[in-house]
């Protein structure tokens, strides 16, 4: 009897795991995240370009040899954070590489050949961050993470140039497997779900450890942490020191921040608490963006939190039925002779258009 109970429990766990990771999902949320992430990559790289030689090359703040030594074992055991940019010295070559990097990021944001530009954008970003040791911060961590997950999914299948090309070259899509893979449709896919789940779980890890680290401090407990953040001259972009006259307010916000971060990983999943948790995320990161001078970091964290918004809700919000438009192109995933690399994209049977006419999911559903 106990053995049977354990078997049943094990079976339920496996089923729940499969449902969580392998239920096909529409790509609309990821497509919006792709646009935002690509734009952030492009902006970050454009800002670098303003003083490129400060950050790349032999005369940068952290020059090539120092950057290589920091990772290569000269001062500590070597690590795997390698970059060929350590060896790029010619200003012309550095500029050519950087312009190529920016072009790829722009293509990724626009959704042009996203199957190719997605992995390329992630790879170039990795090379940059491994080269720019010493000048990085949370923005780089989160935008690199998002680029990594977005390249796994057909995030360029909607709100993209790819979707336009797919309509324009309909016959090629239907007759050529590579073209069909290159220009995927916006049908629900396991890949989109896996990418979404990875962002969600990763975000839970970020907040959990962020909260646990704060819980090790003293000012997050005595309620003064927010004051010391607001009163930090180097961070300040808008004056928040007037909060100092309202100790009840800033200490309450301090405690709320820790509570929210620690319990984000639990409270973001239930439908009941998810809207509240996401609203606090927008408030916290919006505050960081406005008052602590990190517009880019605050924005990209809000973008990451979008992973918890249902793609059906986004499609409904934007007033378009993107799936139907895509399906009208030949419903690749429904055709038995579909050249679309359905097996690669959809490792599970893909729902038919009919099955998708079920009621949309609750807003913010994961």
């Amino acid at each position: 009897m106990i053995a049977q109970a354990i078997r049943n429990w094990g079976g339920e766990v496996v089923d729940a795991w499969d449902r969580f990771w392998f239920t096909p999902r529409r790509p609309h949320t990821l497509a919006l995240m792709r646009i935002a992430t690509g734009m952030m990559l492009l902006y970050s790289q454009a800002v670098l370009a303003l003083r490129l030689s400060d950050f790349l090359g032999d005369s940068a703040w952290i020059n090539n040899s120092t950057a290589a030594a920091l990772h290569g074992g000269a001062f500590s055991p070597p690590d795997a954070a390698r970059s060929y940019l350590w060896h790029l010295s010619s200003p012309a070559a550095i500029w050519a590489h950087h312009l190529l990097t920016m072009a790829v990021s722009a293509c990724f944001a626009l959704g042009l050949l996203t199957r190719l530009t997605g992995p390329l954008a992630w790879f170039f970003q990795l090379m940059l961050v491994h080269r720019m040791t010493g000048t990085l911060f949370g923005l780089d961590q989160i935008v690199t993470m998002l680029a990594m997950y977005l390249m796994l999914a057909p995030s360029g299948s909607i709100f993209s140039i790819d979707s336009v090309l797919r309509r324009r070259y309909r016959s090629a899509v239907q007759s050529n497997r590579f073209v069909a893979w290159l220009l995927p449709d916006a049908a629900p896919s396991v890949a989109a779900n896996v990418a979404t789940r990875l962002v969600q779980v990763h975000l839970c890890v970020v907040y959990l450890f962020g909260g646990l680290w704060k819980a090790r401090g003293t000012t997050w407990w005595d309620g003064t942490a927010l004051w010391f953040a607001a009163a930090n001259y180097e961070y300040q972009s808008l004056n928040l020191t007037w909060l100092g006259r309202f100790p009840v307010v800033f200490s309450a916000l301090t405690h709320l921040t820790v509570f929210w971060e620690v319990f984000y990983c639990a409270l973001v999943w239930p439908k009941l608490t998810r809207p509240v948790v996401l609203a606090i995320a927008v408030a916290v990161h919006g505050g960081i963006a406005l008052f602590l001078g990190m517009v880019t970091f605050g924005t990209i964290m809000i973008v990451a939190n979008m992973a918890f918004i249902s793609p059906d809700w986004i499609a409904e919000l934007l007033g378009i039925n993107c799936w139907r438009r895509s399906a009208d192109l030949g419903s690749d995933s429904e055709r038995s002779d579909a050249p679309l690399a359905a097996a690669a994209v959809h490792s599970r049977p893909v729902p038919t258009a009919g099955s998708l006419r079920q009621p949309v999911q609750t807003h913010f559903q994961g």
Partner: protein
Amino acid sequence: MLIIGHLWAVVSRPIEFATLGPFGASPSATWFRAPVRGYSQFAYLDHGYAFFAPDPGPSHLIEADIVGPDQQRTTRRYPDRTDQSPRLLYHRHFMLSEFLNDVYHPPGEPPREIAEDPSALRGWHQSRRRYESVRDSIRNRLETHHPDSQITIQRLQHRPPGLPEFIDQQMPLDDPRLYRILHDSIDGELPGGELSGAVQTIPPAPLAPLQFPQADQRRMQIQNDRSEVAR
């Protein structure tokens, strides 16, 4: 399996980072991370996520003293909002100055208990060379902008005022009393220097070099994380 392996890499670094103590990380956390260490490093997943934690502390700046060929002396401070714009560019320079402070290691010979341990002694000297390498790289960059000049750089600490100072004394956030020079010496982080007053940092800054030599090398490994988090 790929998903499990990836999630392993995602969680193992923050776990290891959270277990860091005076003797380094927990051996079990290090063991847990070992199989995915290379992957997490290459994929830039090796972060501790200690944003503004454990406490929002003081900022660390770079002050460059530049004596030109005509013996004109100028002082530049990094980051500098008037020079670095947009804000993201300013923030990159801010992280650079924090990084220089994070990798700081005092000069000179180590205490006897470290000198007697070959591994700890090697770590001591490696840490100093690391700091000097970063410091010299920054100085070289300044020299490209100011050729034929004599340039010295030093670290500054700038703490935010406490509430009583701000409310009762109406101390501005950039009051000179909130700054102090961090000297490059074994007791260099003790209060001192022409800009400093008798003001204590809140929370207190580390006052001494690392006490535990075995932890030193590992701690140097994690300093990238400390400088790379959004603080």
